[in-house]
């Protein structure tokens, strides 16, 4: 009896096509190793938020907390209660940007994706090619003209400067269009025969059928907006975002280590939770993400 056979018995693994157990075992070990590399900083960040001050500065450092406490969060709220602009203001700003930005993006991207996915009309192919090309460079390239456009529109120091550009995020349109191509044409034809207008078809037939893609667009758009600190566009304190305010707090250095850890937890937990909830839908959408030749 070889050791691999014994292991296989222990884990009740049946032999699969094209798979040798030894290699599978080694690959899983490899995956586990890098999984730790990936997860430990996050686990550590979560634990830090619940550590009392003496544990935060203990040496050598421990990953897991011994005596969990909520002190860091109380300190955070006390601190924010004393700040010039109330914490709730930052929360409202962030929620405003995030919700309008994400919902608007899903709506506009779906509306644009439907004709591009299902019909050929003059310019449709060229427009989609431009969208695909725009995936190939980052937003930094357009930063300078964007700033000029914003100041020309008078949007500097308003939330519009963050929300509006994010509505036309090109990855969202691309994924939505690829996903919509799977909707059977017969469904749309049937609706047309029943006398539904294009808008009606889009709203009552296409949209309910692409729910997984909504969630995907949400999970891609949400963290960007949630983590937005207003960049170069927003400089009034009462328009700034939660991310900015919390960032300022953790700038406090050693004295704010505990509060900083609580801040980090609040900022990371929201996008991660959303991903956990929507994971299977996201994967379903990504299956159609491929680029055709």
């Amino acid at each position, binding site marked *: 009896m070889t050791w691999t056979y014994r292991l296989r018995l222990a884990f009740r693994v049946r032999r699969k096509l094209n798979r040798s157990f030894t290699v599978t075992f080694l690959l899983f070990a490899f995956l586990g190793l*890098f999984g730790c*590399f990936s*997860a430990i*900083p*996050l686990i550590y*960040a979560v634990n830090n938020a619940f550590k009392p001050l003496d544990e935060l500065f203990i040496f050598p450092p421990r990953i897991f907390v011994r005596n969990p406490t909520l002190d860091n969060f109380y300190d955070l709220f006390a601190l924010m209660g004393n700040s010039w602009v109330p914490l709730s203001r930052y929360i409202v700003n962030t929620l405003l940007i995030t919700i309008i930005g994400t919902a608007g993006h899903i709506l506009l991207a779906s509306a644009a994706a439907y004709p591009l996915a299902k019909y050929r009309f003059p310019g449709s192919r060229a427009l989609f090619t431009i969208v695909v090309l725009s995936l190939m460079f980052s937003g930094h390239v357009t930063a300078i*003209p964007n700033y000029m456009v914003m100041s020309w529109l008078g949007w500097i120091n308003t939330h519009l400067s963050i929300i509006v*550009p994010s*509505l036309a995020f090109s990855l969202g349109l691309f994924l939505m269009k690829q996903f919509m191509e799977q909707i059977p044409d017969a469904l749309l034809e049937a609706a047309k025969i029943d006398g539904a207008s294009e808008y009606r078809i889009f709203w009552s037939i296409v949209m309910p059928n692409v729910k997984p893609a909504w969630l995907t667009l949400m999970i891609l758009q949400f963290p960007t907006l949630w983590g937005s600190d207003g960049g170069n566009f927003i400089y009034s304190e009462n328009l700034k975002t939660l991310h900015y305010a919390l960032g300022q707090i953790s700038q406090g250095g050693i004295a704010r280590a505990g509060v900083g850890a609580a801040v980090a937890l609040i900022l990371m937990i929201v*996008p991660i939770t959303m991903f956990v909830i929507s994971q299977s839908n996201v994967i379903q959408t990504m299956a159609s993400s491929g680029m055709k030749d």
Partner: protein
Amino acid sequence: MQAETARQAASGLVRVKSRPRLAGLMRELRKNKHYYILIAPYMLIFFTFTVVPVVVSMGLSFFYFNMLEFPRFVGWQNYTRLFLDDDVFLIALKNTFIFALITGPVSYLACFIFAWIINELPPKIRAVMTLVFYAPSISGNVFFIWLIVFSGDSYGYLNGFLMRYGFILEPIQWLTDEKYILSIVIIVQLWLSLGTSFLAFIAGFQTIDRTLIEAGAVDGIKNRWQELWYITLPSMRPQLMFGAVMQITASFAVAEISIALAGFPSVNYAAHTVVTHLMDYGTIRFEMGYASAIATVLFLIMIGTNLMTQKLLRKVGQ
């Protein structure tokens, strides 16, 4: 070729007979009116904030412009200054290429390999492992944890660990020593680079047709490596191309991590990239023309690399 010209001639003839070209286009536009209305809001914003800015940026790169005075045409001067007189830009360019050459391929391979192994796991564990690898890329600025790890005093975890076991006697200034900055930024960048393409690969593996694999086994495929090369890779080509675009674009855009870890500007520009150079001139010095030249160079590098890679990937499994 001949057939094509013949067809063109024929369609031209038909058009001449029926109605003038413009009227045909108008009719076509009217017929598709609803589609144009549906795509209009998105495209309006997309063109205003993405397409037009790229063109404006290219145009502006030939001007001297400081947001106050009227732009002054200077020809190629911004570009000659960029490549001949600006030593910091050359450092930035070199760093950007080092970043891209390492983080691009490594993160792409990591996305693929991890997705491939994860695909062998039972569904519940698969979901957990997907989360484990994907979480860093959406957890915002949690990479500040790495600041503690690489902290320059003896309380930094890496220093503490190395000193405890006697590898070093004095703490190393990881984030201010030119020798280490670049590698540290690369490590952290890799840590959070399993993003959208990783999910696309996970999804791609799940859509592979099982019957293909069984048929392959009949045709003599014996192990997982052969299965990967002859069946899995070719059937995942669309996802591979999509993933490549995502990873390449991200690998040339390294900036936020560099600023957070190494500062802005970093010691002796050791972690300076094209993007941080662009920020320097665009948002601090307000030399918009010069910054546009930097942006144009960045644009050409990103698009060029992407299109080249697409061409290469088209050959996978052929």
